[in-house]
């Protein structure tokens, strides 16, 4: 138990320590601990516009993707969970299959599509591409959560004279909140972490996301390990904050996603 904890905590602390070490003490081991701690690497990374801009891009793309995928997904899931739809079994199979689609297979046609629509190097290209793999997951998750909410509750509301949209707004939506939180959390995490589409569809600082900026980190003659460590820490802040703050929803989302068979 302690060993496992150590194996998982050590790389984090090591990266934090690296990001705070003076340049001169980086390339020697031992000693493990630096003689003094410095903010220099963070100053360098945030001083260049690249990483700052990437953080803004990732945040913007992540939030819009989450809103879009959830907006489309919530109606789709409600339709699937509550209405008779011809060919529903096939539809569900396609959606489940959609969560398994390898990105490497769709990256070349999507690249051509983005080029044809002059969307290369824009947020919209990334938002659309990220939505393509977040949406099946969102529908899959929300359908599962919706099926746990008894239909009787809505019917009781309609007997009391509430219209279906009203019943949905005031009865289903509050009960669905944990599901929405799980879906939003997973979508944002996937969008924040996504690399292949972002690497392929971006060309300049204008749309480069955090993982791309990190992968392209400049270092022609010497690898600036302290700066990379600082950039890695910055790139990890949103996932870390979300995991620590919303761990409950993350675990529930993972379980629902995995156990719905």
């Amino acid at each position, binding site marked *: *138990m302690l060993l*496992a*904890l150590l194996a*998982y905590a050590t*790389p984090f602390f090591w*990266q934090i320590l690296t990001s705070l070490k003076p340049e001169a003490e980086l*390339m020697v*081991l031992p000693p*493990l601990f630096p003689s003094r701690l410095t903010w220099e690497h963070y100053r360098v990374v945030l001083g260049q516009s690249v990483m700052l801009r990437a953080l803004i891009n990732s945040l913007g793309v992540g939030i819009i993707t989450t809103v879009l995928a959830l907006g489309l997904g919530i*109606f*789709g899931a409600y*339709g*699937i*969970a*509550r*209405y*008779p*739809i*011809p060919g*529903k*079994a096939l*539809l569900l199979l396609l*959606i489940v*299959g959609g969560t*398994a*689609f*390898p990105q*490497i*297979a*769709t*990256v*070349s*046609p999507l*690249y*051509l599509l983005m080029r044809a629509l002059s969307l290369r190097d824009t947020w919209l290209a990334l938002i*659309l591409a990220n*939505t*393509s793999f977040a*949406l*099946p997951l969102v*529908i899959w998750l929300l359908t599962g959560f919706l*099926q746990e909410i008894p*239909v*009787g509750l*809505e019917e009781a509301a309609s007997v009391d004279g509430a219209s279906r949209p009203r019943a949905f707004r005031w009865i289903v939506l509050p009960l669905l909140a944990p599901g929405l939180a799980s879906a939003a959390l997973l979508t944002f995490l996937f969008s924040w*972490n996504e*690399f292949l589409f972002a690497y*392929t569809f971006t060309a300049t600082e204008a749309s480069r996301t955090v*993982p791309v900026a990190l992968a392209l980190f400049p270092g022609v003659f010497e690898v600036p*390990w302290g700066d990379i460590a600082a950039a*890695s820490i910055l*790139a990890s802040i949103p*996932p870390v904050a*979300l*995991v620590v703050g919303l*761990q409950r929803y*993350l*675990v529930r989302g993972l*379980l629902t996603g995995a156990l719905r*068979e």
Partner: protein
Amino acid sequence: MSPGGPAATVMRSERRAPGQGLLLVAPALLALGALTLYPTLWVGWLSLQRRIPIFGVERFEGLGNYIFLATDPRFWKAAQVTLVFTVASVALELVGGVLVALALRGQRAGARVGLSFLLLAWALPSVVTAKLFEWLYNPAAGLVNFLLGGVALNWLGDPRLALPGLILADVWRTLPFVTVLCYARLLAIPVELYEAAQMDGAGAVATFTRITLPLLRRILLIAVLFRTLDALRSFDLMFVLTGGGPAGTTETLTVYAYRSLFQAVQLGLGSAVGVVVFALVMLVAWGYLRALRHEGLAA
């Protein structure tokens, strides 16, 4: 997926017209059609084209790209690397994931902290994980060599060590997923079962093989499916950590596909490799679904 569930729901709300349902699903379907289904068909078509470099145009080539791949040693090497990576990574994280889940179960307070660190490793961008391990593996100042007693191993530069190094990084990143699933299942096992086993004088090994493992069976099958699919299509970690090198020892099918597509600008060939990955993933998904159905675990 269980036909009983949704069908029962539908019967009770018989006043709901299919048209309304379709209307609700339509926007999502349109988005998926345009962004997933259509590109999938398009990639199939692309894989039948060949680029003529001088003119920069595509020409219909039929199965030429696939025939080329069948005789291309680099393709078979990449397929082999993908297979080794997938099997080793999934096997290790399965064993490790169960062990860590079992270790976590014992302690209430420690479990929360442990789970947090595990989930962090899972939630980090894989590019961050790649940079993290690149630094840990650094031949001169890496923590790994230091902890091994100051050896001078060049992890990512040595053809014999690069793939194991990559697999280790992937296991670190993805073992938490298996652990979370198993841990949740373990918590749901009634304590009485273990008390009864203890009274019958069962040892730790017998308790594990007779009680714990059978109850984890279903969740493990699902974990294997999810993780196998992910390992087959994974790209970020090896692309950033090793770039397929040294000497192609870590070049998976996805890295080969990417290089053909965007570095060699062979859209047709790269698309053909993409189609192969797609087919592999679908084959595995289909095989597992059959297996699960055979077990009576899925509808």
